[in-house]
Every structure is written in C-alpha cells, then in structure tokens.
C-alpha cells in the first residue's frame, strides 16, 4: 500500500531561526491508520502538523531538507487549498476555528470558498452536521455552544471537504473531562465509519488512549524517538523520560513495583494477565493507602449561603457555602457554566451577591471594596499574558505597590522577596518577553504575592501546559501552601485536583453538590456525571482487576506520588 503521508529524512528550519525544528524525520502514514503524535512542548510536533496541512511552507516559510509526499505529491508544488482537500485540520483553539456567525455558516465555510451553489451547499451542510450529531444546533451562534460542541462543528466543517486525512491539533485542550471523552469517542466513530486516516497531536496520554490508536509516534527535540503500538510504548516506560505522563494506572503499577516491561495490554485500564498481580496490588494499597489525617485549620475565607442571579427562580449561584483554611488547597470542580467563575467574581467583589455572607478571618467582607479584597485574596487568571501589562519583570511585580503609593525602597525590597519565592530573582532586570510561558505564570503569582494576600484563587492553573511544566508549577504552589497560603483551585482537570487538593467542592448548576475528599468525589458516579468529570482510569483499572479496595488503591497512588517516590 502507498503511504498517504511520507516523510523521508525530512528536516525543517524556520526562516528566522538558527537551529532546525525538525531533524531527520522518517515516517510513513498509511490510509486508514489512527496515529497519535506525542511529545512535550517544543518537541516539534506542531511543526510536523504544519508540514502536513501546508501551513509550512505556505504561511511559515523556511528551509526544508529531505522529501515529503502528501497523497503522492510534493506539497510545496501544490497550494494550501489543494492540500486542504487531502488533509483536513481541526485546530486546538475552537474559537479561532469557528469563523462563521452561526453553526451552518461555519460548516459551509470551505464550501463557500469552493464557490459551491447555495442549494447544494445547504444539503451538504446538513449531511455533515448529521454525521457529528449537531443538526439540531444549525442556527446557533458560537456563544451558545460549549467548547466540545464547537469542536464537533469544526469536525463537520472538515468532513464536508471529503479530506482523506483528519488532523487534530490538541483536540483535548480546553475541554472538560467528559467533553474530552466524547470528543475521543466521536473521532473514533468517524474513523471507523469513514475509514479516514486520523492523526492526533496531543500530550495527554491518559485521555488520548481512552480509544484505541494504531501507532504512537513519540517526538522529542525535533526528532522521532520512538514509534510503536500503545502497548509497546507503555511497556517500555519511555513516555516519562520525554516529559510525558503515562496513564495513571501505569504510573501506579510502577509505583507499586510491578515490572511493567513484562506486561502486555497496558494501553487501556483492563484486566491484566499476570499471576499474583491482584495480591501484590492489594498489599500495596493496604500498606500505602492510608488516608492522611489532615489537621483542620481555621477558616481563612468563608463563603456562607451565598446566592446570586438576576432571575430569582434560577439563580446562577444558589446558597453556596465553602471554606478555605490556611495552608489548604481546595479544588473547585464543575463543568463550564456550573458557576465557578461567577463564584470567584463574587469573592473578589466584582459581582455583588443577592444574599449570603463572605468572611475573611471571621470579619465580614461584604462591605469591602474590590481593592481591599484584592489585598486579602489574590486572583490569578488562566492565561498569564492577559495579566501582564509592563515591559520589565520588576516593574510588573511592583505595579500593585506603586499605585498604593509605597516608597521606592520598600517596593524594591518587597518585589525582590516575592521574586525570590517564585524563583525569578535572577531575572529581575529582564524584560518580560524573555520568560517562558511557565515563568510568566509564576510572574503573575509574584505580582499577586507582593500584595501579601493570605489566599490565592487560581483559575485553571495548568491549562495548556505539558506534564513537566504542570508538575513544576503545581509543586511550586504546594510549597507556597506549606508556608500557610490558602488556595482555591478553579479547574476541570481532575488529575490536578486528585494530586494536589486534599478537598474538593463540586459545583453543578450553581449549587454545591458535594464537598469531600477528592478521592471520594471522583469515586462517586453520580457526582462525576453531573459535574462533567469522569471516573479516573485508576479506579477503572482497580475494578477491572478485582482489587479489594479501589479507593485505597487510588489513595495509595496519591500518597506515593506526594512522597515523590520513584520518578525523580
């Protein structure tokens, strides 16, 4: 069989860079295959995708070496439009991809560009929407759709082109766990029904492997370091050496000292065929799975019976109560639209509640101004680029102090102290633009820390970061919590909650539907379903292998992870 995409000793260097981004790539992708291209940030996986869909060389220029054939032809000799008929791309940013003013227009976009007649176009749009189950939403505007639904629409838009290859650039970014699972399922359905070639660029193994893939292509520093079936790659245990995280149950097996190299069938959380495995894991769960006694710390922040909403029959926030103590990390979980961001705006004072109270160290904050609240409770946005306004690092951190009229000497002292805590002191005289994304994220924390709040609200702190950066940042947050800082993590990333937050508050439809340890919350099917979460692969695996106590198995994993055993 002829490969549909074929790289031979291919290399690529962007126009204004001195080092090539892709080196010596040799890869054949055959029609009908389902491929996962994995790799940490900066490994070159996005560049590889650009080579396949024609953004290279048509939008991003540079020098290519070796050969690349797409559908048997050299892409450089064709146009980006011709290529889009072979390789259809679904971008990571669902909002950027959604260019139409409503669903129908967006799906029709490619057809419009082909100058298709209107009656035929209407018919094709309906067919494509039907394939992804979105026909009922044909008149909807993008603002009435969730991220997952927008992605479905994008997929319909690509399906209407009849491209043989579907290329997904980080399909799971910005989706809550339940939508992520649905997306993977839809991709798998389309793959099976249409026989199209599917290529996914991702770094989250746990989520990608929810549905079978044929081959994993592992990239690092611009090279392909390994190609193999999921079973082969997982058994070889090499994901972690390239800054990627294997699925949690594989992690757990390693932590329990099970030699994974000898195991077959690791690619999904199913029953494994290994004598004595159950006993070994049960013993490990029993020994390591004790629940840590968490000392109850006095509440720093208390939300008491808070209600907010313009329509009294359907409040956006409905009698919500929660507490965050000193040194505590509390996860606020829930799907999009559950009221997480509204609640944080109520706490920071941007919105005023209809009823209920807000207390900080026992004092009523109800009458406090936004500014005064900001000194007690810091708020850090998801994307650091949206918070940084100054050119120099030290100025950015000192800005909040400067407007408070402190003297230059005091500002300097406080800024340096905050930068030291955040590990940015060596860069204090650098421009902000010299920092990486993760460092910018820490910079935003530093600029909040100088105001000396006792609680910080973190909005989706790890979105869009690969495992290595994610872990680095969250370990930093954990170290701040040990200094007594309280954190409220607003997130739909359950693994984040699982590993770093002992306690979770689950919001659904504006109400607190559960407040418990994260292990308990994620172990309860009712809660996970209502909050668009899903059961973790850990407990799925524990159940599939008939372990005595899945909950203890999960707890053992968390405890061992916290000790930082094994992987360092």
């Amino acid at each position: 069989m002829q490969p549909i995409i074929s790289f031979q000793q291919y290399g690529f260097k962007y126009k204004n860079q001195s080092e090539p981004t892709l080196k010596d790539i040799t890869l054949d992708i055959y029609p009908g295959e389902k491929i996962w291209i994995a790799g940490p940030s900066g490994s070159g996986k996005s560049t590889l995708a650009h080579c396949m869909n024609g953004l290279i060389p048509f939008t991003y220029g540079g020098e290519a070496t070796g050969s690349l054939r797409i559908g048997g032809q050299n892409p450089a000799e064709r146009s980006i439009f011709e290529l889009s008929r072979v390789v259809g791309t679904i971008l990571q940013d669902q909002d950027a991809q959604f260019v139409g003013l409503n669903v129908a227009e967006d799906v029709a976009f490619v057809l419009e560009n082909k100058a298709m007649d209107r009656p035929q176009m209407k018919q094709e749009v309906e067919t494509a929407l039907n394939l992804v189950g979105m026909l009922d939403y044909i008149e909807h505007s993008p603002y009435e759709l969730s991220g997952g639904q927008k992605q479905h629409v994008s997929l319909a838009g690509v399906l209407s082109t009849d491209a043989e290859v579907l290329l997904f650039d980080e399909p799971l970014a910005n989706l809550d766990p339940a939508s992520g699972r649905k997306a993977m399922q839809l991709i798998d359905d389309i793959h099976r029904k249409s026989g199209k070639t599917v290529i996914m660029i991702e770094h989250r193994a746990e989520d990608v492997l929810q549905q079978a893939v044929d081959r994993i292509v592992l990239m690092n520093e611009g090279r392909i370091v390994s190609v193999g079936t999921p079973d082969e790659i997982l058994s070889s245990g090499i994901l972690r050496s390239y800054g990627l995280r294997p699925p949690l149950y594989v992690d757990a097996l390693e932590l329990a000292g099970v030699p994974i190299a000898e195991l077959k069938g690791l690619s999904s959380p199913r029953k494994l065929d290994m004598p004595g495995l159950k006993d070994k894991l049960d013993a490990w769960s029993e020994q390591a799975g004790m629940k840590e006694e968490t000392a109850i710390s006095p509440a720093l922040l208390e939300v008491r019976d808070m209600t907010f909403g313009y329509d009294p029959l359907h409040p956006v926030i409905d009698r919500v109560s929660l507490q965050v103590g000193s040194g505590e990390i509390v996860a606020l979980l829930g799907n999009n639209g559950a009221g997480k961001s509204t609640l944080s705006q109520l706490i920071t004072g941007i919105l005023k509640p209809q009823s209920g109270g807000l207390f900080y160290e026992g004092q009523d904050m109800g009458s406090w101004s936004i500014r005064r609240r900001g000194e007690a409770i810091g708020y850090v946005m998801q994307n650091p680029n949206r918070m940084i306004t100054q050119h120099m690092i030290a100025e950015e951190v000192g800005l909040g102090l400067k407007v408070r009229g402190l003297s230059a000497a005091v500002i300097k002292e406080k800024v340096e102290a905050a930068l030291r805590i955040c590990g940015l002191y060596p860069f204090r005289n650098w421009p902000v633009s010299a920092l990486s994304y993760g460092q910018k994220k820490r910079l935003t924390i530093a600029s909040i820390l100088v105001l000396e709040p006792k609680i910080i609200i973190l909005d989706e702190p790890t979105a869009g970061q690969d495992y290595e950066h994610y872990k680095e940042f969250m370990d930093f947050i954990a170290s701040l919590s040990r200094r007594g800082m309280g954190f409220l993590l607003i997130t739909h990333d359950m693994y984040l909650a699982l590993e770093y937050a002992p306690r979770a508050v689950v919001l659904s439809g504006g109400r607190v539907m559960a407040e418990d340890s994260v292990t308990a919350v994620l172990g309860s099917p009712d809660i996970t379903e209502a909050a668009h979460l899903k059961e973790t692969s850990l407990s799925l695996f524990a159940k599939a292998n008939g372990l005595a106590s899945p909950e203890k198995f999960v707890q053992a994993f968390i405890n061992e992870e916290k000790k930082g055993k094994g992987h360092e």
Partner: protein
Amino acid sequence: MNRTGSLYVTGSSLFHRLDGAVKLVLFMAWTVMTYMFLDLRVFVPMLAVGIVLLITAGIPFKRMAFLFWLMIIFTVLNAIFILLITPTFGTRLTGTDTPVIPVGYNTINAETLFYVLTLSAKYLTLLPISILCIFTTQPSAFASSLNRIGIPYKIAYAVSIALRYIPDLTEEFRSTLNSMQARGMGISKEDGSIKQRLRNLAAVVVPVLQSALHRIDSVTNAMELRGFGTQKKRSWYSGKDMEPMDWTFAVLALVLLGVGIWLKVAMLKGFWYPFS
C-alpha cells in the same frame, strides 16, 4: 449588542427582507439627499417616511435606545452651541435680522433660530434610516450582497469576521480589567485620580492588544486551511438572490436621487426661510 456580536434583530418587515446592498444604495441616496438641501420642506416629508418605516420594522425601542439618544443628544448640543457661539449666523444666509432672545453679549435672532431648526431636522432625517439599516441587516448576508455588487469578497468578508470576534475581545478586555482591579489598578473611583485611572485603562490595552494579534494569527491560519482567499470567486451560505422587490427599491432610490438633484438645481437652491 446581542450575543452574536451584531446588532441584528430578527424580523420580517419590508426592510428585513430587502437585500443588503439595496439597503446600502438606499441609505446612500438618502444621505446625499439630506446633505444637498438646507430646506425644511424636503426634510419634513423624509423624516415622516423614515419614522413610518422605523415603526413598521418592529425593532424594540430598548435595543436601539442607546443609538437613538446618542444622536438626539448630539443634535441638541449642536443646536445649543450654534445658538450661543454664532447667535446671528442666520443673517448671513437671509440678509435680514430679527432680534428675539438677548443673551448679553449679543441677541439670538429669528433667522438663526430657524436655521438651527432646519439643521436639526437635517441630522434627524438620517436617524431612522441609519437605525433601520443597522438593525435589520444580517452581517453575513450583507457581506454576500456587497460582494455581489462588485466589492472584492475579501473586503466584504472582513465585516462579517470583525463582528464575529468583537464580543470575544470585549470579554477578554473585561476579564483583564477585573483582574487588574483586584490588584488595585482598576478604573473605578477608589483607584485614584482620573489621571491614574486613565493610565490603568491604558495598561490593560497592552495584554488585550497582544491577545488580539495572537487571535488574528490563529484565525488567519484557520481560514487559510479551509481555503479562504485561494479562488477568484466565492459563494455565500447566507444571503439570497435579488428579487423583483429589491430591484424596485434600487431603482426607486436612484429615481429619488435624480428628483432630488433636479429639485436642487431647478428650484430649492439654498436655505429656505419663509418669513423674510
């Protein structure tokens, strides 16, 4: 502004059904007419027709209130300033001077009062037709009809794409402003002097602009990957073909304009002042 970013209000009135390009022609003819004359005898009938059309379109007043009051306030302020700064301007147009209201340094005369009345009517004549065009035209259908009358589709599409992303940008702006406010760098009264607050506002523009540029980059990629701009022609999902009614109105607009020009040249040459 509704959630789709455009000001479009769904409906089925005459103006809703009219083709976007025809509406544009009508609007331009109307505007030219208005600017040609300084004659109340022309403005009063135009204003009456405009108001009738506006009422039949059934746009809820709440939706257009902002634009409506903005234009009214502008017109009133304009009138007051003319009266105060040049109280006898009317004399220059009519050659007569009939003092009416003493204002200390000078006396406002009847000629100027009538001039201001005419001028206000002139501005207000544009009000109903502008509101109609803005609120009854679906942006992508408008883009499609612009393209049909010969505007290159890349330019026509820009209207539609801008409307698509304006709400995203305002949302981003708002959330950035909120986070700045929590750091004591907001734009409310407690955040310091007007100067400081303006400076804070300017600071927010930096990250929002940066993210807008980033957004433009990804949207451009998304559009290119879906074949935008590669062909000479493009078809449009929204929009429809020209119907007899559209042609009728296009012709009507041109006839109206012709009559206007004839009137201007032959009869109603300058400022109309009935009392001299």
